[in-house]
C-alpha cells in the first residue's frame, strides 16, 4: 500500500488565523470564547461562542489575504475560511508552482458539517421580504458544502479527485481519512484535505440551542463555558474556522524534498446505529472506530502517547468517550495523555476533526501536548487519566490518535505518527 504523509498545514481558528499563532495561543492556555458579536444574541439560549476574530484583532483573520473581494461577497464564511486554510497549506508545502501533469494528480477533499447556514438564513429573509427576483444569483453555489473544494481547485488548477465530506462533527476527520485512502489507492499523489465551519448566526445558535446541545450557564464568564470532563459542564460552545492539510504520497514527498510532519497510518470509521443526537450509551461506536484505526495502523496500544479527544463538554458525550478509551486502551491509559482543545477554541463542528488533527501533528513536532482548560472538578470517571488540566505539558509524543463523533451517530478516528 502507498504510504501517506502530511506535508502542509493551514488553520483559521478563534485563537489565530495561521498555524503558529493558533498553536502558540493553545499552548498558552488562552480561550477564544466571548459574547457573540455577529448579531445581538441577548435573547438566545446561549449568547456566547468562539468566533474567528476580525482582521484588526491581535490574532484576527484577514480574508483579503487569500480570497478575492468578489468571492468574499458571494460565498458564506465557511468557504472563505476553507479557501484561506487551503492556501496556507499549499504555501507551507511549497506547492504553488506545479506542472499540469502534477495538477492532474492533485485533488481536494474539504468538507463542512452544515455549510452555508448564515447565507441560507439571510437569503430566506430576502425571499420573504422582497420576493424571488431579489435572491442572489450566487445563492446556491455560495452555500454548497463542496464549494470549498470547488473554489480551491479553480484557484490552483487542481484537477485530481474533487470531493467533500458531510458527516456533521466527524467531517474533518473523515475528509483526511478518505483523502489518505485516495492517495493510498493511487487515485492521486497529493490531496488537500480538511473541514470548515461558519455557522455562528441566529438560526445556528437557535437550532443547536433547541437541540439542547449548547452550553448556556456561563453568560458572565464565557471563557469558562467549554469545560470537557468537568462536573459543571453543560454543553458545547460553538466555534468556527477551518483546518486543511496537504496529504502526499511518501515517495512523492521524499523525491521533492518536502518537509514531512507525520504519517497517516490508521483510519477507523463506524456508525452508532442508535440515535440522531445522543451517543450510544456504551460508547460502542466510538470504541469500534478507535479499534479499527489502531488495527490499521499496525501500532501497539502502548505506542499512543496522545489522544486529542472529541470531548465537546456535553454531559453525556465526554464520559462515554472516556469509557470507550479506557476499555480499548486498558492499562495503557496510564501512560498516555488525552486532552480536548475544544476547551480553548470551542467546537468547530465540520472543521473540528481537521483542526484537531493539526494540533496532534504539532504535538508530534514540538513534543508538547495541549491542555484541557477549565478542568476544575474532573468527574469521577477521570481518575487515573492524564487529561492535561490547565497547562500544556512537555512529553515524548511519537504517535497520536484523534477522535471525532457526529450527529447521526457517525464516528471517525485517525492515527498518525512521526516518520
Amino acid at each position: 500500500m502507498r504510504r501517506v504523509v502530511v506535508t502542509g498545514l493551514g488553520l483559521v481558528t478563534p485563537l489565530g488565523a495561521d498555524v503558529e499563532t493558533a498553536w502558540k495561543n493553545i499552548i498558552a492556555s488562552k480561550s477564544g470564547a466571548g459574547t457573540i458579536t455577529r448579531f445581538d444574541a441577548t435573547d438566545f439560549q446561549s449568547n456566547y461562542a468562539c468566533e474567528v476574530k476580525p482582521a484588526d484583532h491581535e490574532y484576527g483573520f484577514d480574508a483579503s489575504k487569500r480570497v478575492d473581494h468578489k468571492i468574499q461577497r458571494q460565498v458564506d464564511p465557511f468557504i472563505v475560511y476553507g479557501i484561506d486554510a487551503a492556501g496556507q497549506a499549499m504555501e507551507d508545502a511549497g506547492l504553488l508552482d506545479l506542472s499540469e501533469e502534477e495538477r492532474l494528480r492533485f485533488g481536494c477533499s474539504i468538507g463542512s458539517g452544515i455549510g452555508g447556514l448564515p447565507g441560507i438564513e439571510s437569503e430566506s429573509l430576502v425571499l420573504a421580504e422582497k420576493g424571488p427576483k431579489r435572491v442572489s444569483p450566487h445563492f446556491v453555489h455560495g452555500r454548497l458544502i463542496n464549494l470549498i473544494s470547488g473554489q480551491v481547485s479553480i484557484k490552483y488548477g487542481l484537477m485530481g479527485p474533487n470531493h467533500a465530506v458531510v458527516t456533521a462533527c466527524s467531517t474533518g476527520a473523515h475528509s483526511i481519512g478518505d483523502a489518505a485512502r485516495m492517495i493510498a489507492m493511487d487515485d492521486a499523489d497529493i490531496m488537500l484535505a480538511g473541514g470548515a465551519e461558519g455557522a455562528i448566526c441566529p438560526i445556528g445558535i437557535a437550532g443547536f440551542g433547541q437541540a439542547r446541545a449548547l452550553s448556556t450557564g456561563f453568560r458572565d464568564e464565557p471563557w469558562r463555558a467549554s469545560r470537557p470532563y468537568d462536573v459543571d459542564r453543560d454543553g458545547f460552545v460553538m466555534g468556527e474556522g477551518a483546518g486543511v492539510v496537504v496529504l502526499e504520497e511518501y515517495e512523492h514527498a521524499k523525491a521533492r524534498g518536502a518537509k514531512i510532519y507525520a504519517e497517516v497510518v490508521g483510519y477507523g470509521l463506524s456508525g452508532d446505529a442508535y440515535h440522531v443526537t445522543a451517543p450510544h450509551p456504551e460508547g460502542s461506536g466510538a470504541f469500534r472506530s478507535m479499534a479499527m484505526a489502531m488495527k490499521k495502523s499496525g501500532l501497539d496500544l502502548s505506542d499512543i502517547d496522545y489522544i486529542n479527544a472529541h470531548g465537546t463538554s456535553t454531559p453525556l458525550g465526554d464520559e462515554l468517550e472516556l469509557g470507550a478509551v479506557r476499555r480499548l486502551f486498558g492499562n495503557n491509559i496510564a501512560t498516555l495523555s488525552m486532552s480536548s482543545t475544544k476547551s480553548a477554541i470551542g467546537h468547530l463542528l465540520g472543521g473540528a476533526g481537521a483542526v484537531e488533527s493539526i494540533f496532534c501533528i504539532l504535538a508530534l513536532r514540538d513534543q508538547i501536548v495541549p491542555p484541557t482548560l477549565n478542568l476544575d472538578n474532573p468527574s469521577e470517571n477521570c481518575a487515573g487519566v492524564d487529561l492535561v488540566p490547565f497547562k500544556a505539558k512537555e512529553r515524548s509524543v511519537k504517535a497520536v490518535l484523534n477522535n471525532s463523533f457526529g450527529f447521526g451517530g457517525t464516528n471517525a478516528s485517525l492515527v498518525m505518527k512521526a516518520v
Partner: protein
Amino acid sequence: MSTEDRVKTIVVDHLGVEASEVKLEASFIDDLGADSLDIVELVMAFEEEFGVEIPDDAAEKITTVGDAVAYIDAHQG
C-alpha cells in the same frame, strides 16, 4: 451623487475592481472580469439603488458601464 457615480460605486463593490478601471466604455465581461451571474447581480443592485425595473431583454443589452447609466437615466421615474 450623479447616476454615473452611483453606478460606479456599485460596480466597484460587487466586482472588487479599482474605481479607475470603471470607465463608461468598460465592458463588464471583457474589461471588469464579470461573468453572466455577476451581471444578474449587478442588475439587481441597480434596480434596488435606483428604483427602476430592468426586464431581462433590456438587461441583456447592458454590456458596458455606460449602457447601465444610459438605461437608468432614460427610465428613472
